[in-house]
């Protein structure tokens, strides 16, 4: 909806409109350059810089409004509050849809400044298309303006969703959006290259950007996994949730693209495929955004956003860029010169093609699974979705194949190889991997043949790539070994995936305070409840005794003051070989209280209680006492049913002295020991609150205790992959710079 001017915070809104004008001016300037007017280049660049400046200013403004808690602004009201600590105050920026589109646009606009410098001779077309991708986001923001004001200024905001009040919220989303913004760069380079029929230059220039985007998105996914695992208590690092998948699919496609670009750079292969891949990466980001932001999955995801009414825009955006890509691919692709495929089967070329196809298939299958609610809408009465088991199942053969291919690639050459020679090279790593597999079978409890093959292949991939990393780094410096290093990480991750997902043991157990309980080879005792201390929330102390080892874990379970939501944070005891993951589920403080209206019944501990009604003649006539203004005594008639089924009627008293407000509630002894008393009377609901005392009624804590073997390998492996990727990125950047230097020398 378009708001009338009075409903907008004008400095912010005007800045956004100015950004639209500068973006259009820049595109117009670049189009003049394309028509041969070289003098317009300065104008086009300057306009772009002003566009980026306007977006930066708009972002700063929203940030400041959030910091100043200016609740006139609807967005500030919705996502901030007076009690919100300062660092979350800023994180509220990307808590909602509008703010997250703005930060995405901000990163995109800033990156654009850098692209201009590296775009080379095709800058006008590249910048034109790149700015067009940003315009899509900008239009959404102009339509769903973050600077909408409320008619009245509320005193306090609604606060930030307590689930998001976490340190990861400060860092994870902005990095994710850098990754999303970066996906438009190879797209712009590729489409511009097709448009201008200038097929030779783009791959080298887009390569470092593609690698950089892959790295940043990888970091963001890693952080999201940490967040889910360490604080959200979802039990794992990956839940195949649509929002998670929406970032994984572009990352996998990006992985395929960087391998395609590598092949193009080194062997001149994949020249046509890379155009398709660059388009797919960007379109998958848009598609993921559509799935998670349009509300189509609102019933299916734990953290999808609700519909903001932008579905139509997102579909148009996606459709527009898909149409542009399809048109360019359809009209130009067959003119892109390629070399015929003459690789023998057993060669590096063929194996790289096979592994990229395998990753591509994986991303297609994941995209298909994530789209299930959309797809099933067409042929089923009610839309449905697939659970994690689908993804785990179909990705199993893919992982096996990837591990096998990765294990072979280091020992294959571009020319082609003799099978015997390759097998001979594989002998030593094979023995290493066999040792790993035997260890897993003998001591790790891995007996499933498929899992043993998995361990062997992942171990083999790890070993051969590690060998090659070392030899390459020795021969040509570490810069040349980035790819192999990343593949070592893939082997490590695969081992971690299998161990932590197929071999975790989870037990749900309820602990009574002070009573030790055996869970597997551990003895757990819920020792005490620790009340809130400053910023530290309510914690549960659990003593764990395992063999001669004794330690405490402190999972948290607390109620958010604002929303009354029960929040649970797990505690993790990490050891090199396994994590002990203790996640609280439920807590019963053990001092039962019960409020009942007349005729209602309920439970106090294991005792059934029915409130029959008031006894107004307990100690004289209560009505007369009230009328006289003196002390009043009311009796509450309750039927108490104790364990064993015996029911007794009791009349606990409630004495009130209206002159000084003193309340006396003598406990009424229960037949089996202990006593029941009236702890309050709720006049407005004519209900009575009962409590019991003196009954052994310990606090109860329900927890989920999970052992996750070798989960450290997942994190460790991802670090290796990202380090390898970083090494490769710097290496490619250096190559582009050298090429440009050389070109400059030649030109002189």
């Amino acid at each position, binding site marked *: 909806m378009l708001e009338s001017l009075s409903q907008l915070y004008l400095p912010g809104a005007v800045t956004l409109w100015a950004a639209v004008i500068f973006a259009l001016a820049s595109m117009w300037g670049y189009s003049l350059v394309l028509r041969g007017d070289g003098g317009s280049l300065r104008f086009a660049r300057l306009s772009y810089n002003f566009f980026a400046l306007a977006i930066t200013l708009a972002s700063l403004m929203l940030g400041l409004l959030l910091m100043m808690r200016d609740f006139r602004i609807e967005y500030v009201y919705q996502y901030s509050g007076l009690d919100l600590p300062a660092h979350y105050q800023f994180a509220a920026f990307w808590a909602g849809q509008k703010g997250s589109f703005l930060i995405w646009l901000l990163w995109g606009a800033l990156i654009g400044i850098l692209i201009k410098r590296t775009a080379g001779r095709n800058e006008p077309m590249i910048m034109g298309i790149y700015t067009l991708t940003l315009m899509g986001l900008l239009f959404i923001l102009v339509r769903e303006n973050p600077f909408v004001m409320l008619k009245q200024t509320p005193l306090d905001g609604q606060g930030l969703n307590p689930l998001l009040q976490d340190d990861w919220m400060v860092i994870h989303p902005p990095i994710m959006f850098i990754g999303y913004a970066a996906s438009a760069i190879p797209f712009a380079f590729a489409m511009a290259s097709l448009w201008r029929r200038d097929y030779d230059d783009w791959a080298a220039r887009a390569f470092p950007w593609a690698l950089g985007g892959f790295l940043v998105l990888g970091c963001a996914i890693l952080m999201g996994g940490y967040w889910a695992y360490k604080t959200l208590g979802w039990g794992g690092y990956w839940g195949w949730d649509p929002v998670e998948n929406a970032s994984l699919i572009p990352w996998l496609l990006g992985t395929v693209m960087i391998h395609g670009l590598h092949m193009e750079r080194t062997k001149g292969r994949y020249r046509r495929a890379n155009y398709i891949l660059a388009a797919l990466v960007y379109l998958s980001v848009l598609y993921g955004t559509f799935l998670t932001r349009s509300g189509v999955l609102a019933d299916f995801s734990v953290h999808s956003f609700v519909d903001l009414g932008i579905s139509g825009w997102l579909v148009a955006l996606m459709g527009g860029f898909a149409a542009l890509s399809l048109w360019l691919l359809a009209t130009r692709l067959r003119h892109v010169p390629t070399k015929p495929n003459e690789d023998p089967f057993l060669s590096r070329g063929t194996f790289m093609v096979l592994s990229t196809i395998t990753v591509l*298939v994986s991303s297609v*299958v994941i995209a*298909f699974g994530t789209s*299930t609610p959309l797809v099933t809408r067409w042929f089923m009465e009610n839309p449905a979705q697939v659970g994690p088991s*689908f993804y785990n199942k179909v990705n199993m053969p893919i992982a096996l194949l990837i591990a096998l291919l990765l294990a072979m690639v280091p020992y294959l050459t571009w020319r082609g190889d003799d099978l015997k020679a390759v097998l001979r090279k594989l002998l030593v790593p094979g023995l290493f991997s066999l040792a790993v597999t035997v260890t897993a079978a003998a001591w790790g409890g891995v007996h499933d043949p498929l899992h043993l093959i998995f361990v062997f292949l992942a171990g083999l991939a790890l070993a051969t790539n590690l060998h090659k990393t070392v030899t390459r780094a020795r021969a040509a410096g570490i810069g040349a070994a980035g790819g192999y290093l990343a593949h070592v990480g893939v082997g490590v991750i695969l081992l971690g995936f299998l161990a932590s997902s197929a071999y975790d043991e989870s037990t749900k157990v309820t602990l009574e305070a002070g009573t030790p309980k055996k869970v597997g080879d551990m003895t757990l005792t819920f020792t005490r409840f620790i009340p809130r201390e400053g910023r530290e929330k309510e914690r549960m102390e659990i003593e764990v005794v395992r063999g001669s080892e004794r330690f405490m874990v402190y999972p948290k379970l607390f109620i958010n003051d604002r929303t009354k939501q029960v929040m649970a944070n797990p505690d993790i005891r990490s050891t090199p070989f396994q994590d002990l993951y203790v996640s609280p589920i439920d807590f019963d403080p053990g001092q039962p209280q019960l409020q009942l209206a007349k005729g209602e019944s309920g439970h106090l501990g294991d005792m059934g209680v029915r409130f029959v009604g008031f006894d107004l003649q307990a100690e004289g006539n209560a009505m007369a006492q009230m009328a006289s203004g003196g002390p009043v005594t009311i009796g509450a008639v309750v039927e108490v049913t104790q364990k064993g089924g015996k029911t007794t009627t009791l009349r606990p008293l409630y004495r009130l002295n209206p002159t000084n407000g003193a309340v006396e509630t003598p406990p009424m002894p229960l037949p089996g020991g202990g006593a029941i008393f009236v702890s309050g009377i709720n006049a407005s609901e004519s209900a009575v609150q009962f409590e019991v005392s003196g009954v052994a009624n310990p606090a109860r804590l329900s927890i989920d205790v999970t052992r996750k073997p070798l989960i450290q390998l997942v994190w460790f492996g991802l670090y290796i992959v990202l380090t390898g990727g970083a090494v490769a990125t710097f290496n490619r950047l250096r190559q582009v710079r050298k090429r440009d230097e050389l070109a400059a020398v030649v030109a002189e």
Partner: protein
Amino acid sequence: MKQTYRYYALGGVLLLAFAGFSLSSFKETLTPYVSYKQARDADRIVQVAGGLEKGSSKYVADEDFLYFTLQEPEGADTIRVRYKGLKPANFEDAISIVAIGQYDEGAKEFEANKLLVKCPSKYQGAEVKEYG
């Protein structure tokens, strides 16, 4: 050249095989939303949704079983659900509950292995939590 085509054919066959495998896993893991009547007749894993019938929930701590009755949102049909696991927090306040599982003919109960409990929340209308 002939050999290249053989590779393409082989690759095509492998891809087709994989597509078949994914489709069968897809069908297997797909859990359609069905009415209670359909759920009672189905011989596969399905999802049923509904509201909690007041006062129907019972948690048996020794066996770790939660029993409750769901009421069909439109219509008067009810279904008794058995869920192995702890009773979710705020369970009684649930606006709607989705139970994923299979009907047990013998016990005349819907055996849920997963629950999605939608509770009222100030944020974004409602909050869905997953159990099981």
